[in-house]
């Protein structure tokens, strides 16, 4: 048995299968347009991954992941927008050198909080730190006062509503309802042509696997077990001497950072960022991706994201009327019948058959058993 700090055998197989699927199968079978769509879906997979840790393991349902997705995305978009609005690109404006929407809103100078975004290093740090610190503040305020469960869900939802209204209302600083469009280059490298899109796709998949490894590490470390214990019997963990609030803050912050990385990838791959990815509706949709994939399964969340988004694109292309019925029905079906999502179906119905098949081939009735934590769902 190859058990180490990151994965056991079945999880290793699962991760390798996913890697082959994303790195070899999809790029070979899809054209650039479809591959770019997959890249867009995978940006949500970062959010879903964070939710597995935060919601699946920690039991904290956040309905405000769109906030962090948006913060990360806007940080990236601000950098790209500044680069796209250099003085020579914007010389027809009344104030050259500032983004076009600022010029339309009669701003004559770059606001102070935009200025550091000229630097790529600062931007990369901000993508992770701004949402991380924001989550830290919200988490500290809430969990230290033992607000949790439904109250936390509703308050995160309110935060998502506030940020959306703020972005839409402050048009001159944020681009308003249209968001930041017309993003062109990254350090002089054009992100719009096909070969750049393919490069960005592979870069994104690389980042995704780094995040998967972090998630696997959290899960297999003692930390992950405390999170699960906390979800099941919070008071017992507290009485055992652990600071429940700190673990919750950690889970919430790491989920926020994952979401922010996803948002930054979105701005790069799709080429714009707008408040329609910040609000309540996208935030809840992101929770659904996790629920469909399986809230306890790291890899399941990624497959869930891909599947729901594929269904969304193809259904809304062919039967636009049916799509919302389908999505709504999917929610209800997942909650009522399959609380552990696809991963639950896999581990309950498919995995045992495979195991039995392998065992009967080997003629070894006492084959290896899965030693993952008690909460079950083996990854994929």
């Amino acid at each position, binding site marked *: 048995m190859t058990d180490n700090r990151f994965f056991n055998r079945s999880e290793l197989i699962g991760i390798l299968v996913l890697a082959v699927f994303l790195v070899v199968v999809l790029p070979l079978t899809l054209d650039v347009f479809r591959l770019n769509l997959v890249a867009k879906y995978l940006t949500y997979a970062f959010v879903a991954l964070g939710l597995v840790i935060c919601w699946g393991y920690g039991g904290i349902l956040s309905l405000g992941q769109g906030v962090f997705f948006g913060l990360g995305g806007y940080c990236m978009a601000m950098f790209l927008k500044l680069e796209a609005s250099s003085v020579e690109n914007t010389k027809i404006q009344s104030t050259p050198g500032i983004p076009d929407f600022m010029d339309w809103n009669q701003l004559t100078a770059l606001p102070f909080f935009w200025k550091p975004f000229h630097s790529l290093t600062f931007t990369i740090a901000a993508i992770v730190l701004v949402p991380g610190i924001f989550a830290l503040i919200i988490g500290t305020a809430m969990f230290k006062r033992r*607000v949790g469960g439904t109250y936390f869900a509703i308050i995160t939802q309110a935060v998502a509503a506030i940020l959306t*209204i703020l972005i839409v209302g402050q048009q001159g600083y944020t681009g308003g309802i249209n968001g930041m469009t017309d993003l062109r280059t990254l350090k002089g490298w054009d992100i719009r042509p096909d070969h750049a899109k393919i490069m960005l796709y592979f870069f994104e998949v690389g980042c995704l696997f780094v995040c998967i490894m972090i998630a696997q590490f959290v899960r297999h470390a003692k930390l992950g077990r405390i999170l699960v214990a906390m979800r099941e019997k919070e008071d017992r963990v507290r009485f055992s001497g652990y600071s429940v609030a700190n673990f919750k803050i950690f889970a919430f912050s790491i989920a926020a950072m994952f979401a922010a990385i996803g948002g930054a990838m979105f701005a790069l791959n799709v080429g714009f960022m707008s408040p329609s990815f910040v609000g309540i509706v996208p935030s809840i949709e992101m929770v659904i991706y996790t629920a469909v994939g399986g809230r306890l399964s790291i890899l399941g969340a990624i497959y869930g994201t891909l599947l729901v988004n594929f269904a969304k694109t193809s259904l809304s292309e062919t039967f636009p009327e049916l799509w919302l019925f389908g999505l709504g029905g999917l*929610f*209800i079906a997942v909650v009522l019948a399959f609380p552990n999502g696809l991963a639950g179906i896999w581990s309950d119905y498919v995995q045992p058959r495979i195991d039995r098949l392998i065992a009967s081939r080997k003629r070894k009735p006492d084959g290896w058993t899965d030693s993952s934590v008690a909460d079950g769902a083996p990854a994929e």
Partner: protein
Amino acid sequence: MFGDYSLGDLGSIFVMQGFAGLILFSVYVLMALGLAIIFGQMGVINMAHGEFMILGAYVTWMTSNLFQTYMPGLFGGYFFLAMILAFLASGALGMLVEWVLIRHLYKRPLDTLLATWGLSLMLQQAYRSVFGAREVGVELPQWMLGSLQVTSSIEVPINGVFVMCLTVLITIGVAYVMFKSRWGRQVRAVVQNRIMAGAVGINTEKVDRYTFGLGCGIAGVAGSAFTMIGSTGPTSGQLYIVDTFLVVVFGGAASLLGTIASAFSISQTQSTLEFFMSGSMAKVLTLLAVVGILMLRPQGLFALKVRK
């Protein structure tokens, strides 16, 4: 900014702005009452609450069309029938939803949120398919148009006054049902201790179903009243759902009095701020204040002291 106004004008502005706040307050109270029963008393997070409200609005719209076509003589009074129909339609749908969906999820409150969100998507699409994507508005009867002249500079719209009176009546009705009737006593008993309530012979399943139905029915009436002051589209309900949840949570989830107090303070803050700044900033500041206060006082304004 006050230089252009005389003192008397300022007074009138504050009164009228306060009155606009009172209309907003009425809508909040009507929506939050239903939600306070469902979320506060039963612990179910009903994200489809806005859609139940919109169902009431569409029922009102259909009733008004019906009266216009077949009974134009009685058009002045259609609203009262429409309200009853809206209550029955939303209540019946609520009981159906409870039976199919909610009763399986009482032990998993966070999952009710996801399931009812799915339900709200389906209802929205259903409205869009049946009634069309465009917003519809009802025609108000003659006596509801125009406004009351209170003083030379203060005037209040009649439909606003009507909605407010309606709110007061419904609130009194709900308070009576919940706190004075035998059935209300059963509801509160089930909320406080489900197993014990069952042990003394209360049919908890039946109480749950009717409680959920009542909450949805009140949402339907809220939607009916809502048509008096705005138009209705398939997604109108979603605009109010977060505000309504905040009202209920801010008031202290299990307290009806707290719900009313919080609806009053939120609506007045928002409408007063709207005079000084743009609507969106007023909303942002109000919501921020509510979230900030909730962080300091998570149990809400009026907390019910229950031993957990």
